[in-house]
């Protein structure tokens, strides 16, 4: 429970790294967190993990606290592109190295580990375009409006739509990343458009699962393609079972481990890469086995 209490009593051995995560009730972030814990143990460093609970303001506060505690390095899993930037600026100004993981901020950190959200949406939408041969009606479930993830995945998806004039975005609406809301939204779309919908792109797997269940219950799943992003366990299982058409794998473990490794290298003054890009991969029934 009080991880720090025990270790702070003993003499400080390894470096201390402060970590501020977007939201640990999000499965994807939980996986990053677990990978970080494992890597930290392996490298003999102590990490202090704070949960920003999706609030950029809290995130800035947490980084301020890390600075006041004089940690050796900070890993930031930004809530927002702009709004989390002051955290980066403050760390840099205080001379503490800061590594961004998973997503970017406007301010440039010491190093970046992750991938670009636009890319994930692009991969997903291109898969839809391919399956529909560039022609058909698409609906899109947005994340929480105004959040970085939603904006970037929206941008990526729209790039592909622009390139495929045959794809028509007939409806789009927010389901706030939430499975239950996505289910209701899908049910309502079924009422409005019925079988006219050819594909659903959900900006995360939770919403994709909700859409999937609603379509299955309406016995329309065989007519509609559903694609999500993140490759959470449920979604991978659904792809394996042939229920979900595809999801986009983002390597949470790889990102978490690489972030800690990079931070430790910086602290130990070893050479490190300023930008570690961990690519997305499309997961379909054909290759799902390798993601378990």
């Amino acid at each position, binding site marked *: 429970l009080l991880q720090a209490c025990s270790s702070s009593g003993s003499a400080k051995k390894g470096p201390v790294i402060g970590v501020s995560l977007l939201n640990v009730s999000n499965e994807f972030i939980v996986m990053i967190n677990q990978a970080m814990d494992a890597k930290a143990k392996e490298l003999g460093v102590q990490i202090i993990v704070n949960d920003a609970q999706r609030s950029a303001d809290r995130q800035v506060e947490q980084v301020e606290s890390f600075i006041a505690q004089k940690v050796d390095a900070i890993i930031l899993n930004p809530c927002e592109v702009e709004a989390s930037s002051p955290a980066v600026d403050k760390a840099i100004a205080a001379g503490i190295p800061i590594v961004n993981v998973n997503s970017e901020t406007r301010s440039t950190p010491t190093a970046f580990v992750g991938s670009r959200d636009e890319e994930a949406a692009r991969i997903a939408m291109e898969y839809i375009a391919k399956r529909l041969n560039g022609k058909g009606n698409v609906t899109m479930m947005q994340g929480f409006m105004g959040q970085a993830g939603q904006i970037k995945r929206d941008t990526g998806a729209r790039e592909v739509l622009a390139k495929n004039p045959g794809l028509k975005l007939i409806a789009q*609406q927010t389901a706030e990343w939430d499975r*239950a809301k996505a289910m209701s939204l899908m*049910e*309502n779309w079924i*009422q409005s458009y019925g079988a006219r919908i050819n594909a659903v792109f959900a900006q995360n797997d939770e919403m994709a699962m909700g859409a999937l269940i609603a379509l299955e219950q309406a016995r329309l799943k065989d007519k509609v393609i559903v694609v999500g992003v993140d490759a959470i366990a449920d979604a991978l*299982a659904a792809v394996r079972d042939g229920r979900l058409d595809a999801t986009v794998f983002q390597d949470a473990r790889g990102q978490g481990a690489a972030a800690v490794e990079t931070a430790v290298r910086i602290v130990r003054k070893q050479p490190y890469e300023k930008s570690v890009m961990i690519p997305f991969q499309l997961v379909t029934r054909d290759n799902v086995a390798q993601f378990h």
Partner: protein
Amino acid sequence: MTKTRKWPPQLGLAIALAVLMAGLAAARPGFITLGNLVNLVRQISINGILAVGVTYVLLTGGVDLSLGSLVALTGVIAATFAHPGEYAVVVPVSAGIAAGALCGAINGVLVTRGRMAPFVVTLGMMTSARGLALLASGGRPVSNLSTAFTRIGSGDFAGIPAPTWILLAVAAASHVFLRNMRMGRHVYAVGGNESAARASGVHVNKVKMVCYTVCGAMAGLAGVVLASRITTGQPNAGIGYELDAIAAVVIGGTSLNGGTGGVSGTILGALLIGVINNGLDLLNVSSYYQQVIKGVIIVGAVWLDRSKKS
């Protein structure tokens, strides 16, 4: 002598709802189809169950902010017992409801024995229960649930979805309890004038305990139905549900000060919120405008209800 005033309390609201539905039907013929009406009653079920539960607490003049977190916690607990081939379906269902009732009872004890403001008590429970839900699930959805369990959320009977039947059952039982039972009368007395209720021999603390416990149990039931409907126990489910539930009750004419209102209004309130959400989705109004309009309609409907009365 003179006549008793017998204006049905929620007539204004019912009219507002009817106008709204007529408008939607005109704008979008798909709105009034059987399929969509079934949809609608299914979609209001979970909020409806929560709203019925919190009606008890609001009637006593209290409040319960922990509903959303309890939905998550009980959903996770139920899901843990609902993997295929482990237990009969009654086990996860009872576990979820019992967990909810227990948390509700803790709220009740702190409010009555601890003499603390319900707002603070249930705010604490809201925070703690969310943490417990995350702990119990390790922060990840509990999935792979038996079909017997998931049928609670997805099944139907006589064309009406199972969650709606559940809502109808708890609403009817609560209506009868509050209107026709002695204890129900006492609920109104406590909310109307706690000192006078006490001076009349009503066991105020017992009444409050019952209300908070029932409210918790309903949250447990809602948690079970939700987990079953989305086929997972989600530790981050239900965020903000307490506000939607309280909104349904208050829109339905139950006073936050307690003592007046009832379940029939609550159901109308839940329906109003459901119709707005469903209708705006059907009209494919952009998310931004959807929120602006939703706020305006809620206030407008309540305004209509108020002004009809005076």
